[in-house]
């Protein structure tokens, strides 16, 4: 049975766009940290953990927050939802932050609060905690977003009924450059219960198209 993409989000160049339409525009020339804080505040939520996160987690968290807000209106089962992310720089951005705390023997202050973010999958953990998502989760590293692999891998999990929903995409951040592209996939079976939802076929072609939209 076919599966469908019910929504997608992009965050790059101080712009958040949801399903291809502008959702939030940051001030011109704003650095990532200021920009993502602006987006957070615009959402009107209180989640103090956000301020403890590293930049990669903040990026993925905000993208997921906006996307899942729209998906919650249709409804989904968090325990049957998987998360599959990809990026190029792993957690290197925070690896360097952490490295700077230990490279000088005279000024050595390793921090557990920083160290914990030196793994790329922590962003998945943050999104799982926030949304009670308990399904399969994987973080893949690739030079560029690989829609062919992502589509095939996630389809395989749907085919074996290991998941009914999937939050997928690209969450990349390194030294000030960032790009998030997330999309939500629903099994065709679940979608037919909600015929009012406008959705796109989950295919490599769709992913290639909406990745650049």
């Amino acid at each position: 049975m076919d599966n469908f993409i019910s929504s997608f989000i992009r965050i790059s160049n101080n712009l958040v766009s949801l399903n291809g339409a502008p959702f939030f525009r940051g001030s011109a020339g704003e650095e990532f940290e200021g920009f993502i804080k602006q987006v957070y505040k615009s959402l009107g939520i209180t989640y103090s953990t956000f301020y403890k996160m590293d930049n990669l987690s903040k990026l993925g968290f905000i993208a997921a927050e906006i996307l899942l807000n729209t998906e919650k209106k249709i409804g989904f089962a968090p325990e049957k939802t998987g998360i599959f992310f990809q990026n190029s720089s792993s957690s290197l951005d925070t690896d360097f932050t952490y490295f700077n705390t230990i490279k000088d023997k005279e000024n050595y202050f390793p921090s557990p609060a920083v160290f914990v973010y030196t793994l790329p999958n922590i962003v998945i953990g943050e999104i799982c905690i926030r949304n009670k998502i308990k399904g399969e989760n994987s973080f893949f590293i690739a030079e560029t977003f690989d829609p062919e692999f992502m589509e095939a891998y996630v389809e395989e999990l749907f085919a074996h009924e290991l998941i009914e929903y999937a939050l997928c995409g690209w969450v990349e951040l390194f030294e000030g450059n960032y790009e998030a592209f997330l999309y939500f996939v629903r099994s065709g079976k679940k979608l037919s219960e909600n015929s009012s939802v406008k959705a796109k076929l989950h295919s490599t072609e769709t992913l290639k198209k909406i990745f650049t939209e």
Partner: protein
Amino acid sequence: MKKVFVSSVNALSVLGFSPQETDKSLVRNVSGIKLHEKPEISPLPFYAATINAEKLQAAFKEYANPGAYSKLEQMLITSAKLAEKDTSIPFSSADTIFILSTTKGNIDQLAARKGIKLAELASVVAQFFKNKNTPIVISNACISGVAALLVGKRLIVSGKYKNAVVLGGDIVSAFTLSGFQSFKALSPGPCKPFDEKREGLSLGEGAATLVLSEKESGVVVAGGGVSNDANHISGPSRTGDGLFKAVSVAIRDAKINKESIGYVSAHGTATLYNDEMECKALNQAGLSNVPLNSLKGFVGHTLGAAGLMESVMGIYAMEKSRIYPSCGYEKSGVSLPLNVIKESLYGSFDCFLKTASGFGGCNAALIFQKNG
């Protein structure tokens, strides 16, 4: 459903560069974790299981000039080369995909910014074997190795590839040592998984390879599961529900009864919370009587290699009808019963469970089975 087999394996650690060599220490309950004084990577002396650089270079020289490769690259390539010797699966074929599991890659090269991107590291390895497919990299904390095997299995089941060279590795570095130290997670002596006196983990370095294929052989990758606790990013769940879920999914995926599991290769990091969480999950799964060990008391926690190395030695033990002792274990230090093995156990079993859990709240379980 199409079956996926383990065609050949290798484990490379402080205890040896092959499962045969590693087995000799494991059956005798001899740990490779030693006290090191290396001010260049740690201001304080530390216990860890490291691979001797000269020994590694001597082995690697057979294949290429060690000077042109990092320590981790030498470990990964040597491990894959040794696995290649024992199989007819062509590593260079378009039908073969390389899948790399690592948490930190060439983390010792951070200052020099050399080969620090994980995809580059994977390409170095795949290109060494003249494989032209873009390798897949999985970096999912301490479940990376188990998860990578599941990825390999699925890619073969889906028909995308016929074979997968699943390999993983991590090194002991100033980065990881200081990090786990800052968490107060490092044991002041060799780690003691599940023991009442356990005080934390010991780091290890290692690489391991499993060659998976649709071509029939003696061991099947029967099924697996991955879950998330959705509870805490650095602390394991207090209930074990997440790991229990992964184990349940794996048993269902493998289409076996839990009664047929003859051995559990636990994650067993020897931190207070991890071992307690595992004990709760395994009791929930009704596996508390099954002989269990953690190999981390032998080779330390090898991070991205751990799930692979423990799978390799589990397969070797299944083929040789033995279960290794859980090194460092004397008296139970968890709240519910577990059958932790103190001395080598001899006897045949047809099926075993490998589990792993990691930062980010992730859990993974995989079931290996004898073919037929």
